[in-house]
């Protein structure tokens, strides 16, 4: 595989509703931004780009089949090659990785990955129904299809297994909303307290409205290139910041659509097939897990995402990451729910399974230099969702994973201040970052590692 670089990106403003533009034109906002950031003009880029990958989740929201080709057409990319990918909430992450494949394989030298969702065309409860159709329509959906309900069941089990608390989940909401206060692309830029989160209307016990991301209209776009592609762009006058942002790791995992069908594996199976390198190499951690199993914990059950653990382990192996908490400078992860951010800390090996709650409260995943109004015991180590994540930025499904890629690339370029007009969220000397995209109840998960090439 050839080296692949993220050379530019753009994000539309995520909003509750964008009736002013069609989905094609919203994508073009992000696309134009990415091209302009390269300091080349539209026709020049059109000439240089080899093809595209399109990302959007639901044909229901647009009431339009083959919407991808309509974007391709609008962007002036016809007749270049392109295709659409779809994998629920992970659609954007899958799209990013498909674009990486196109370049890494040598099929393309410059590939654009664009994604969008326009979720405002239906009422929120109908939108919830569309999303819930991403559960088995014979056995799960008819029982009361509602994703917030599915995640709430996971977290009641997590709470029972590990004594995770609703206050620990609220810390995630406070962090992500306050981070987004400094992100002009975010849909919700509010300062909340733990009490605000807990006093918000209850949606699915114990998740309140402020534990849950919102539906959005929005688009995002990244431009990936090989070394030859970088040379080709620069020869045409493109300004690509140095050091380059290289994609060093790609990982994916899957799990059963019906979360009820997920296995409950033995300790030995867990250690052999799912434990991180760090966990396997620590006698103390092996003993910790042995005690969890002694008390009845089984893996993954419904409290953990083995797709996320599989994707993380795969990406870390490829990128040479051995201690993610200390080797990654930041992570943009799929926090559709505060509870799933906590579950994902564990999946990604930032802490051990069962320790996600206290870890959320510790301060290790907060941004330095921001007053959260919380008493945090530890200094920041690896900020998670410095952008504000899905909870505050919004979740226009097909755009979300690409939004993460754009923000991650800007972090590593050191250009957050330029793009946000505010440097508060710039992670100092960011060299390695991870993006994590997650579908369904943990059915498809992608993890990609981006790194500064020094």
């Amino acid at each position, binding site marked *: 595989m050839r080296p692949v670089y993220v050379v530019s990106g753009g994000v539309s403003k995520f909003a509750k509703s964008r009736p002013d533009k069609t989905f094609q034109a919203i994508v073009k906002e992000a696309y134009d931004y990415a091209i302009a950031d390269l300091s080349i003009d539209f026709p020049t880029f059109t000439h240089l780009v080899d093809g595209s990958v399109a990302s959007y989740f639901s044909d229901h929201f647009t009431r339009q089949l083959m919407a991808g080709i309509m974007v391709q057409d609008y962007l002036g990319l016809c007749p270049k090659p392109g295709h659409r990918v779809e994998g629920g909430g992970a659609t954007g992450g899958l799209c990013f990785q498909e674009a990486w494949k196109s370049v890494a394989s040598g099929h393309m030298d410059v590939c654009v990955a664009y994604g969008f969702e326009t979720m405002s065309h239906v009422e929120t409860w109908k939108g919830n*129904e569309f999303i819930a159709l991403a559960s088995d329509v014979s056995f799960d959906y008819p029982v*009361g299809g509602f994703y917030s309900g599915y995640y709430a069941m996971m977290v*009641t089990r997590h709470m029972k297994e590990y004594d995770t608390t609703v206050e620990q989940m609220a810390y995630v909401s406070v962090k992500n909303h306050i981070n987004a206060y400094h992100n002009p692309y975010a849909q919700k830029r509010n300062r909340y307290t733990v009490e605000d989160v807990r006093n918000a209307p209850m949606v699915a016990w114990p998740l309140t409205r402020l534990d849950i991301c919102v539906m959005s209209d929005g688009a995002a776009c990244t431009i990936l290139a090989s070394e030859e592609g970088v040379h080709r762009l620069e020869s045409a006058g493109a300004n690509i910041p140095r050091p380059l942002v290289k994609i060093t790791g790609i990982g994916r995992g899957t799990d059963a659509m019906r979360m009820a069908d997920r296995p409950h594996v033995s300790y030995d199976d867990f250690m052999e097939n799912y434990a991180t390198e760090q966990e396997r190499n620590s006698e103390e951690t092996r003993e910790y897990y042995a005690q969890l199993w002694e008390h009845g914990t089984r893996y993954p059950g419904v409290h953990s995402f083995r797709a996320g653990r599989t994707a993380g382990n795969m990406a870390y192996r490829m990128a040479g990451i051995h201690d993610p908490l200390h080797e990654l400078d930041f992570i943009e992860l799929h926090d559709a729910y505060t509870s799933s951010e906590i579950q994902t800390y564990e999946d990604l090996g930032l802490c051990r399974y069962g320790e996600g709650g206290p870890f959320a409260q510790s301060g290790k995943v907060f941004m330095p230099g921001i007053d959260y109004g919380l008493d945090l015991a530890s200094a920041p180590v690896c900020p998670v969702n410095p952008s504000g994540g899905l909870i505050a930025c919004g979740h226009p499904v097909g755009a979300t994973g690409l939004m993460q890629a754009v923000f991650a690339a800007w972090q590593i370029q050191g250009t957050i201040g330029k793009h946000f007009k505010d440097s508060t969220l710039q992670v100092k000397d960011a060299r390695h970052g991870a993006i994590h995209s997650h579908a369904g109840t943990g059915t498809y998960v992608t993890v990609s590692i981006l790194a500064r090439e020094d």
Partner: protein
Amino acid sequence: MADLPTQRDETLGGYIVHNIPFPAGPAGTIDAQMQAFLKSLTPISIEQEYKITYLHSYAQDSPWFAALTNRRLLASQNPQSGYTYANPRGHDMYSGENTVWIDITDRKASIHAFTVCYFGSEEFLPETPFILALIEFEGVDTLLLTRLLGVDPFTPTLDWIGMEVTPRFLRNSKLKPTDVYFIPK
């Protein structure tokens, strides 16, 4: 050549609109002022209805629904390994072999996880608040998603997890998985 219609019939459906703005000017010309006016026009939104009836086959899973109409709860089992799925599944995910049906109606059952939905998808909004629960059965390796009744949806507690439950069946079957639900034993 016969007379062919050159005008579409007007129908009673559609939108009756008054005073949608449009800049005045001579036909065949859009000057700069008109251009600016059109570019700033408030978006026009219309309703589009989308309604479909599907004929959905439960196919190889049909016996599970047939059992519910007879007040029985089936599960799928790999006869070689004994691995048992609470949901119907025609083939075992580990061996790829055909599964067989077993009856778990009277198996000891308890709540593995639950939630109370105070909000929901459009189809289920009239039923809020309702309780979703994942049920674990003795000797069964996976769980079953179901509705839980008989506990107060306004006072949920983690103590419900582990509570023994028993299945009940609708008398008038809807041929849906909600033909079975669970109540505290």
